[in-house]
């Protein structure tokens, strides 16, 4: 057994191991997966001077409780949630020390959806196809955390943290504007569909997970009937199935899909999109592919 480990006392609604993703296997139907809010995940690792890509925990709506085996250093970023270390209040976006036997507890976040708990040395569970990420669609990677799991902690990096804390950009909120680039299949839709997409609001529904967020809103009528031959998809795609409720694809999205994509959310806005909890009102602003 590893000298240092994190024992899961309670996972909360959903907690998974995530890293920078499982790349290079898309041609055979394996998606990238990885942290849904890649920016918050990377910030947590940077705080601890971990190498990029060290595995961390993605915690949905808080509720995670861990106990340290041996002394470990952790940092919590992303959706701002109440943090307690050994029963005392602690801050997010700061380097935190857990002594042997001490507990880390996350309450429900006031805003946003996903918090990240990185540990100095990384979560050292076995990698599958080069990644420790849990892909909830394909079932690859470790299972979602459950009480009693013991997560080994890897060797700490040589580098030491240079900052005790980093500023966190605002996460979550009732309304969110995301930049989109129209296409690749906007020509499958009637002009009023594009107008509605860019001019109206959509609500994130409860039928949302790491695969994608289902959005309720105005109808997006098609101009072209028939079926689209299955084609490759990128994260951020707004795919419109026949029932008309668009799905915004997140980290565990299928590699290919058979419904037309009316627009794609810009990569830089995906971390913020992944923090939209059910009920959030989304609006989409068209941007040119290469600007601004």
């Amino acid at each position, binding site marked *: 057994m590893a000298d240092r480990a994190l024992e899961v006392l309670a996972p909360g609604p959903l907690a998974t191991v995530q890293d920078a993703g499982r790349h290079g296997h*898309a041609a055979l139907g394996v998606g990238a997966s990885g942290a849904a809010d890649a920016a918050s995940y990377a910030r947590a690792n940077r705080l601890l001077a971990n190498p990029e890509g060290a595995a961390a925990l993605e915690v949905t709506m808080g509720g995670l409780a861990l106990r340290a085996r041996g002394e470990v250093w952790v940092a919590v970023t992303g959706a701002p949630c109440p943090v307690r270390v050994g029963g005392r209040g602690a801050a997010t976006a700061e380097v935190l020390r857990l002594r042997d036997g001490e507990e880390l507890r996350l309450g429900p976040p006031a805003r946003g959806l996903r918090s990240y708990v990185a540990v100095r040395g990384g979560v050292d569970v076995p990698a599958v196809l080069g990644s420790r990420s849990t892909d909830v669609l394909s079932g690859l990677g470790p299972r979602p955390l459950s009480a009693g799991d013991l997560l080994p902690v890897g060797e700490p990096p040589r580098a030491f943290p240079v900052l005790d804390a980093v500023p966190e950009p605002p996460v979550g909120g009732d309304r969110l504007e995301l930049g989109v680039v129209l296409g690749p299949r906007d020509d499958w839709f009637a002009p009023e569909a594009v107008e509605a997409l860019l001019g109206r609001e959509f609500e994130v529904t409860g039928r949302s997970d790491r695969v994608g967020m289902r959005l309720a809103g105005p109808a997006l009528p098609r101009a072209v009937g028939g079926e689209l031959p299955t084609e490759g998809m990128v994260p951020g795609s707004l795919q419109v199935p026949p029932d008309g409720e668009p799905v915004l694809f997140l980290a565990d999205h299928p590699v*290919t899909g058979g419904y037309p994509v009316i627009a794609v959310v*810009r990569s830089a806005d995906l971390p913020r999109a992944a923090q939209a909890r059910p009920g959030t009102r989304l609006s989409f602003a068209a941007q040119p592919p*290469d600007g601004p």
Partner: protein
Amino acid sequence: MRVLTCGDSGVLVEVADLGEALALQAALDEDPVPGVAETVPAARTVLLRVAPDAPGGVRAVAEAVRRLRPRPGALPQGGEVEIDVQYDGEDLGEVAEITGMTEREVVRAHTAARWTVAFGGFAPGFGYLVGDDRRLDVPRRGESRTRVPAGSVALAGGFGGVYPRSSPGGWRLLGRTDAVVWDLDRDPPGLLVPGTRVRFREV
């Protein structure tokens, strides 16, 4: 050839049919486009995933793709595999009926044909194979099976395939193989990566 963009992270190239998609993939194999992290071929498209740090981003990749001149009939690069099959599938008789051949003729056609993995999808490790014998073009079953065993060798919709693991499926089963087409402990895990040439051998 239509070159479409998927936000700032992908270029989707649409062509007329599967033959052109294969030729395009072959051209991309021969003359890789800088800044492309990986390609996702499909029936009538190839998606180029653009690396986040690609100079010039999607625009540069789209321009480079427009300069490609795929050779008609070209096939993507790939290794060769032989797959041993026991031709005792539940649908062999039906396939014979649909194609107007005898069961033995179906087996001979399936083993004589040269197959190429065109693209993946459906499940990790599942490859859509195209062959050079149009007689083996049969439709899917009217009703899907809730469980098709792993290793089932099947045909449907102009494609051949091998089920990587037990799953629901509506393809017509010719037989089964012990070949492991998906193994997470192997690199690459998939035996039937796009471009791979496949021959089936009766055992």
